């Protein structure tokens, strides 16, 4: 089998996640909920996912995202880091965000 040059991106605290070109976060007036639109699926993110997704703007590093979310939820950065990085790596593997 030919080896491919393409490799899996692994998250670091310096990564600046951004939603992929084919993914859109959009408020749906009919259902009064936020929807994440992708080619074959529509996701309905919960409140925590939504707050993380909103920070996926290509400007915030993961470290900065954790700080903002820590303030928002009144939580310790060390405590929420594994959750945030876990979500982001999963979304990267599912082609929803670029790290």
């Amino acid at each position, binding site marked *: *089998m*030919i080896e*491919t040059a*393409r*490799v*899996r*991106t692994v998250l670091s605290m310096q990564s600046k996640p951004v939603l*992929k*070109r*084919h993914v*859109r976060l*959009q408020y*749906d007036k*009919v*259902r009064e909920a936020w*929807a994440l*639109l*992708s*080619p*074959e699926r*529509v996701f309905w993110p919960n409140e925590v996912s939504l707050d993380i997704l909103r920070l996926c703007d290509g400007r915030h590093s993961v470290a900065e995202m954790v700080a903002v979310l820590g303030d928002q939820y009144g939580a310790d950065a060390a405590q929420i880091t594994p959750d945030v990085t876990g979500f982001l790596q999963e979304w*990267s*593997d*599912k*082609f929803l965000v670029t790290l």
Partner: protein
Amino acid sequence: MTEPVLPPIGMLAELTHRCPLQCAYCSNPVELLKANREMDTQNWISLFEQAADLGVLQVHLSGGEPTLRTDLAELIASLVRRGVYTNLITAGVGIAEGRIEAFAEAGLDHLQLSFQGAFAPTTEKIGNARGAHEKKLETARRARAAGLPLTINAPIHRHNMEEVPDFIELALSLDAERLEIANVQYAGWALLNRNALMPEREAVERQVEIVEEAQQRLRGIMTIDFVTPDYFAIYPKPCMGGWARDAFMVAPDGTVLPCHAAGTIKSLHFERFGDWNLSRIWHESSAFNAFRGTDWMQEPCRSCERREIDWGGCRCQAMAIAGDAAATDPACIKSPLHARMGALIKEAIDTKSADAESDAFIYRRIGRSAETIS
């Protein structure tokens, strides 16, 4: 209905039945519509407006070959204006210079490109179109150059199943983010060609293994979705996510159907957009309400713990094999007719070994069905 009808999420718009390819497994109905039956631009736009009002979030622009519609960029723009996610499903053959760029400019979100084979001879044979493969490669390059995200779609069957590893390499080399390997669904033209298309069980099992290994190996590099073959299944697919539950399709002439094969259920009557508005069709059409929810179910579906997972499976497959659209999909192991699926596989393989001619396809052509269907 006991439960309220929720708004639809997705819509498949078959803009035309015209197509430069003649694939023998096309999901279009065998009675294809000519160009003069297609809805005009204004009617499609008006339908899209009503779809957005109704709650549709995603529209798949398909066909036939949707790029044969000269107004495609305008149709895309009308959906983009309403924030609807647009996915273009194309065979990628004969798209004029500058048009893919125009689709991207209009706001197209994603492009799905089909490959009938991983190599030129296979693609040409399956689609019965010379030079198709090179044109598809060119379409993929142009789509990526225009910044469009790309899914490669590979429908698989007896004649190209061994090319699965090559489809994976092809999709990687074309910079696709997603590859969909889809076992042909035996409805429409594929049902007509079932004996010529049906793979052997060992081949299916081998491909499942190859795909599962590639899914692991390519995690985070490329997504591979696999559509399993019904005839080899234990449980049926929740076809369309449940009849008239969150999606529907529209034929080129504006007829609105719960799925693209629903026309094979002759007892149903379908409304046309224009005669009725879309909201009324979604909520009140007798065809949409016929198999909505679980009230219509017979045993073994009615008392099955999977009834809201599988939704009874595919109504059209129940019609085709059990002769009753309200029966349990025979793909389900609990169906009293499940053994018939195995018998149909055997019949296909036996005809193949007995007679090389049975490998010949009835190619998809407009106006051809009448002479070939009894």
